[in-house]
């Protein structure tokens, strides 16, 4: 019998991630305390969670309070304290110091941070705080997106990691991936490499062309630049700047925020959340860009479920459009699979987080469609790094994607 999680306290429960994470705990029938700066703000978070669950009955598992009045009352009784305040290390530390003073010595403290160093946050408190501290990275909105990253730091008690794993995989039904405590962890590191590369390409080729070429037919729910608009340019900047500053890998240049975006962000262009300014696109705007022929052919094949043939076109089409498509998509495959051994342990981990966290075709599934040997040849032709796991798969003629219950077809739109 593992640890019983009877009570969870959520800090920052009025925000999207706080309310959404709180919803996930409450939906599992765990008493969840929503805390915010004021009780009213926490109550807004509760309403938000009920709306996500489409149920007021969920509210029976949620109580609300403010930091000033309630933090000291509820933290001592919590089995898990879940921090979801703004992505600001100094601010987070203020709360961690208070939690460290108030918490029961055996309680677990987690942060939903999408990229800050878990180890540096863990050092805020005493030794017990550090041993019981880890990252639980839900993706937004957590009630819909089941992909989740678990990030212990080097000093996290292995038993704590095990207990939280059991909670997330079992009671909370998460598709859980354990990652190393490296910048942006796995999903955002791999995903934002592709997104930012697309943003860089937009300068040269135009945003509409980039999205038409690399849209949902290549294995994603939403075209890449529309995704950046949806996520918010400020959030995008925070993520890629963090990775650019703190990593130095084979795709380092891909994380450099385009100067054009930086200038626009300074002027308040933030994507969909600033509808008057828009982002790459404005809502309701029309594009006169013609869909490239290679994209048209792939969409037509996906429309009738001929995914294999769509990727035959991808692999074999000639001309600059196809070459650019291969550069970005194969770049994704190469970069994602190269994180195996660095950020995650297995191909299945990066496959799961890209499939269930980003709703993108998992890199392993793309390799299977293209063929491991053909992928190696295409990577060579595109002068992209060839990951070791891919070389091994090609040598053994093995398939990479191992989740038999997943319809791979759902990633490829017509």
């Amino acid at each position, binding site marked *: 019998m593992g640890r019983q999680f009877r009570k969870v306290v959520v800090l920052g429960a009025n925000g999207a991630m706080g309310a959404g994470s709180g919803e996930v705990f409450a939906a599992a029938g765990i008493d969840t305390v929503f805390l915010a700066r004021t009780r009213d703000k926490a109550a807004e978070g509760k309403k938000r969670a009920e709306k996500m669950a489409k149920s007021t009955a969920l509210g029976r598992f949620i109580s609300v309070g403010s930091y000033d009045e309630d933090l000291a009352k509820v933290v001592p009784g919590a089995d898990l304290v879940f921090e979801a305040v703004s992505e600001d290390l100094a601010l987070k530390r203020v709360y961690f110091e208070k939690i460290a003073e108030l918490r029961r010595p055996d309680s677990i403290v987690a942060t939903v941070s999408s990229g800050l160093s878990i180890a540096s946050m863990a050092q805020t408190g005493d030794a017990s705080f550090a041993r019981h501290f880890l990252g639980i990275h839900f993706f937004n909105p957590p*009630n819909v997106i089941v992909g989740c990253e678990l990030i212990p730091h080097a000093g996290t008690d292995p038993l704590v990691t095990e207990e939280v794993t059991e909670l997330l995989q079992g009671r909370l039904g998460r598709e859980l991936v354990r990652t190393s405590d490296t910048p942006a962890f796995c999903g955002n590191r791999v995903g934002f490499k592709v997104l930012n590369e697309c943003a860089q390409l937009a300068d040269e080729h135009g945003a509409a062309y980039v999205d038409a070429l690399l849209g949902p037919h290549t294995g994603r729910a939403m075209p890449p630049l529309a995704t950046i608009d949806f996520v918010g340019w400020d959030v995008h900047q925070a993520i890629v700047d963090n990775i650019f500053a703190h990593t130095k890998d084979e795709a380092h240049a891909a994380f450099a925020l385009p100067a054009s975006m930086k200038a626009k962000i300074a002027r308040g262009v933030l994507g969909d959340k600033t509808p008057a300014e828009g982002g790459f696109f404005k809502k309701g705007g029309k594009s006169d860009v013609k869909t490239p022929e290679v994209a048209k052919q792939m969409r037509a094949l996906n429309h*009738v479920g001929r995914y294999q043939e769509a990727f035959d076109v991808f692999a074999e089409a000639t001309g600059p459009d196809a070459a650019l498509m291969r550069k970005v998509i194969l770049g994704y495959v190469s970069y994602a699979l190269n994180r195996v051994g660095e950020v995650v342990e297995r191909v299945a981990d990066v496959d799961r987080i890209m499939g269930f966290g980003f709703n993108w075709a998992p890199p392993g599934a793309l390799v299977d469609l293209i063929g491991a040997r053909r992928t190696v040849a295409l990577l060579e032709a595109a002068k992209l790094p060839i990951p070791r796991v891919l070389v091994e798969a090609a040598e053994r003629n093995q398939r990479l994607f191992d989740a038999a219950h997943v319809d791979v077809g759902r990633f490829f739109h017509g």
Partner: protein
Amino acid sequence: MTRPVYILGGYQTDFARNWTKEGKHISAMIREAVTGGLASTGVEAREIEVGHVGNFAAELYAMQGHLGAFLVDVDPAFGGLPTGRHEAACASGSIALLAASAEIEAGRYESALVVGVEQMKTVSPAVGGDYLGTAAWYEREAKGVEFPFPKLFGKLGDEYEKRYGLKDEHLAAISAINYENARKNPKAQTRTWYMSNDHACGSDQYNAVIGGRIKVSDCSQVTDGAVALVLASEAFATKWAARRGLTLDQVPRLLGWGHRTAPLTFDAKVEESRGNPFILPHTRRAITDAFGRAGVADCWALDGIETHDCFTTSEYMAIDHFGLTAPGESWKAVEEGVIALGGKLPINPSGGLIGGGHPVGATGVRQLLDAYLQTTGQAGAYQVEGARRFATLNIGGSGTTTCVFVVGT
């Protein structure tokens, strides 16, 4: 049965998908189900001798008829394959199964591919509700009626209330059980949705009344889905089993079937059953027919049931019609935990139609695939431990066409 019919397995698409949002044609659904079914059974396309497709209303939802012909498009080896499409509203999938199994029994073919498919998210819920009305007597029961089927199955609850008494809390419990089971099924439509007994008991902006006593939580979903299943004769199954390292007695077969049709309108059904302890006597007969053919004494010889819970009232009906309780006492099986996963006779471990989803023409085939998975120990987190014999109940219309299968090793 004269010649036994074996089930070699199959494939279900993820019922949470929205194929319209994916920009897909209905043929993509058929293709994915069939390629998945062939891959998971290890049966090659050239080994399939006949194909049957169950579908309710692709002409309305997808402006596409003649679905059998799409099988030929899946694999060059299917060139010339005899195919057909079957329709009996929500029982379409079972009718396709009956046709395929009859052909194997008759010795016409050694193997058959059965596909159930429905693409429903092509239209708004209101328009879809109107299309579903064609499964009733449209002019008399559905024309100009918003969401006719919840109202018809609400009437089924009303009839129970009139004859025996009915508490809505028992219907709510049925919903909560199906949702809970669905959380364990990686193909279930609602596997990530929130549901609780409290929620199902309540009625507010998030759980509105749809018609009569039927609330949102009492309803199955609008679902896109396709399922493929391979049936085979003993000769084929014997060779196939050897290839897979199995013995023939490890391969489930259709032990029995029942198939009955009641009058189309709900009022005529009720009129006909006056004085009968069973509200839908033809459904009861289909069940006893299947039990008789399978040599099964009663429901307690089963390890589980996949039933047609298009609404909570239809599962409530199935409980007493299968004989888990005396007529009118289905609530006892709900209260005593008999139908829960881990209970004495679990109903819908998959989540059924309410939790798993209800792509109308695919449902009967999905139920039989789940019966196959259960009786071969392959149902994963929703496995009924040690299951050897399962039954399915698939209903078209307001209890009009009933098909039952008993499956076992």
